[in-house]
């Protein structure tokens, strides 16, 4: 009993000390602007978080080398949320209440971002995520109201399918489509629905549609059915591992029509499993292409490669844009007041980023071009860029 009492007392003491620490926090230094970087640097999705953090640090160094913002340098406060949604909230609270950051970048995933949103809203600190694609991140699903302090630099899912349908019908000239989607995944089902509506609106026809489930390995029976249906193009809005197997099995069955997909295809494993030859005549929609000849993109790819030794992935590009977008908003706001920065972010118009020129719509989603990537002998090449119609 005595030990128990002692435990309670010591807990209360600890709590008091930590509250006091929060209260007197560090004083804001006048020569730097603090930005919180809350990413998944270890754990399950560390690959996403690390590549985003790397791109953000690169962007801030470039901005600081060019003289900083409002005559001050940007200081990134990087903390790891361990790919854990609850930890993401702890990290955000620490960044906002103790480090007094003016803006919050990250996290990478939808779940973690949703957990951080309330604290950012409460302290009126703007949040920019570079890869949370779920619509609920910026719009409250209950009230349908846009979350005032939340922005993102990646597009949400539907525009990808809109662009895919337009590309298939208008540019490839195909009319009869088959869709093979992941029946256990909302991302895949969402894309499938939008693609179907758009294809029909553009005068095309869905001649076959079928779902696969997570454990599936054997796609030949369904593909044989697709072959029989006379489909001129097959749309697979899925993740690379299944996509690679489906395409490989389809080519084996002598199905030589083009395949079309979405950003879930973007992985080196796609080529590793399916082989470069099977992937010829396949396309997918993505956030950007490292092969984009534009000077801005090439400079970014070069700088990133020099510093980290690899070609930046899509979500490095959207993170890099998030960092520049924030710097731009602070400049436009003319102050480091968090509400003023938020207002400037919402008013973003024709921001010229790596992933295209964009403005925010009223739901804080960027309206921008979607890149169509073609696989040529195992290499991703930029086929075209299309702006989705609203």
């Amino acid at each position, binding site marked *: 009993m005595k030990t128990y009492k002692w435990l309670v007392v010591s807990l209360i003491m600890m709590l008091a000390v930590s509250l006091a620490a929060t209260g007197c926090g560090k004083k804001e230094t006048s020569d730097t602007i603090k930005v919180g970087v809350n990413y998944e640097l270890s754990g399950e999705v560390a690959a996403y978080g690390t590549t985003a953090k790397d791109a953000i640090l690169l962007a801030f160094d470039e901005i600081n080398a060019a003289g900083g913002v409002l005559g001050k340098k940007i200081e990134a406060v990087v903390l790891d949320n361990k790919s854990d949604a609850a930890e993401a909230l702890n990290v955000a609270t620490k960044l906002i209440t103790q480090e007094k950051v003016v803006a919050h970048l990250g996290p990478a995933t939808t779940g973690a971002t949703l957990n951080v949103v309330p604290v950012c809203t409460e302290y009126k600190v703007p949040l920019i995520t570079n890869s949370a694609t779920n619509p609920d991140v910026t719009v409250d699903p209950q009230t349908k109201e846009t979350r005032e302090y939340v922005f993102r630099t990646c597009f949400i899912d539907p525009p990808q399918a809109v662009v895919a349908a337009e590309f298939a019908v208008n540019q490839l000239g195909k009319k009869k489509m088959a869709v093979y989607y992941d029946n256990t995944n909302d991302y895949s089902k969402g894309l499938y629905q939008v693609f179907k509506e758009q294809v029909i609106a553009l005068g095309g026809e869905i001649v076959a549609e079928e779902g696969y489930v997570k454990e599936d390995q054997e796609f030949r*029976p*369904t593909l044989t059915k697709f072959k029989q249906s006379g489909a001129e193009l097959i749309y697979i809005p899925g993740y690379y591992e299944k996509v690679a197997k489906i395409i490989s099995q389809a080519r084996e069955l002598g199905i030589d029509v083009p395949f079309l997909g979405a950003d879930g295809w973007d992985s080196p494993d796609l080529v590793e499993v399916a082989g470069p030859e099977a992937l010829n005549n396949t396309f997918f929609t993505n956030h950007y292409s490292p092969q984009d000849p534009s000077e801005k993109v090439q400079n970014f790819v070069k700088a990133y490669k020099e510093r980290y030794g690899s070609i930046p992935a899509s979500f490095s590009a959207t993170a890099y844009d998030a960092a520049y977008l924030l710097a731009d908003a602070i400049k436009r706001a003319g102050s480091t007041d968090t509400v003023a920065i938020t207002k400037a972010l919402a008013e973003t118009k024709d921001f010229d980023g790596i992933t295209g020129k964009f403005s925010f719509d009223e739901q804080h989603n960027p309206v921008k071009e979607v890149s169509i990537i073609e696989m040529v002998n195992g290499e991703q090449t930029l086929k075209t860029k299309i702006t989705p119609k609203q």
Partner: protein
Amino acid sequence: METFIAQLLNGLSLGSIYALIALGYTMVYGIIQLINFAHGEVLMIGAFAGFYAITKLKLNFFLALIFAMVVSALLGIIIELAAYRPLRNSPRLAALITAIGVSLFLQNGGLVVFGADYVSFPQAVNKVTYKLLGGSVTVTSHQILILIVTIVMMLVLQYIVLKTKTGKAMRAVSFDKDAALLMGINVDSVISITFAIGSALAAVAGVLLGMYYQTIYPLMGTMPGLKAFVAAVLGGIGIIPGAMAGGFLLGIIETFVSGYWSTTYRDVVVFGLLIVILIVKPAGLLGKDTREKV
């Protein structure tokens, strides 16, 4: 018609693999009346052994297959020794639950050792596509290889079971363990041999699955294992030709359901079939009704 032939070929390749796995279930059940739920995981270990033999030891496909068979056979013997033998005289439920435990142990052990990611299986045999009937039906060298390997394995197994002394001992133990013991048969070693053979067949199935589907991962054995269990029950569990027939039949049924109906209904049909068989003809298609001796 072409579609029908194409689907039949797809079904035969898948069915061969199911048949190979079902044989292991049925042999073990035949001899100790235990459903070895860890069988799918033995398959997974076999697939990984084949993978290491090809990538690290630079063996060719057939040597890698033999290497995988040896590794799995040893694993089968160890599982029987460590997990099932101490429980041989316990209630059958205890052994069944242990089997599920071994299965989970191997799955999660696999996740720790090999990682959760998919590993792409090297294409040790060149994939050549042959076009039949003017290109509307295609067969790959992999499908032909699967069929040939399966048939060879089945012939070897039939030879062992029917023509050798070991096979005779296996049949004797499966018929009446106590009588076999009285006749001077070493029951323990016969059971070990049965596990070894069944596990080696699972390894073959594992390597073929890896080659056919290009990737392997620690949970790869679960679904094929369950399906093969259905195949074994369908043909009549404990009966070797039943497992073969059940395997092929199940592969073809699955393919036809996906091909002519919908993939979503495939597993509904397969497991529905298991329920129907258990209700209507529990001894399986090739099984004879035997009354439980009391």
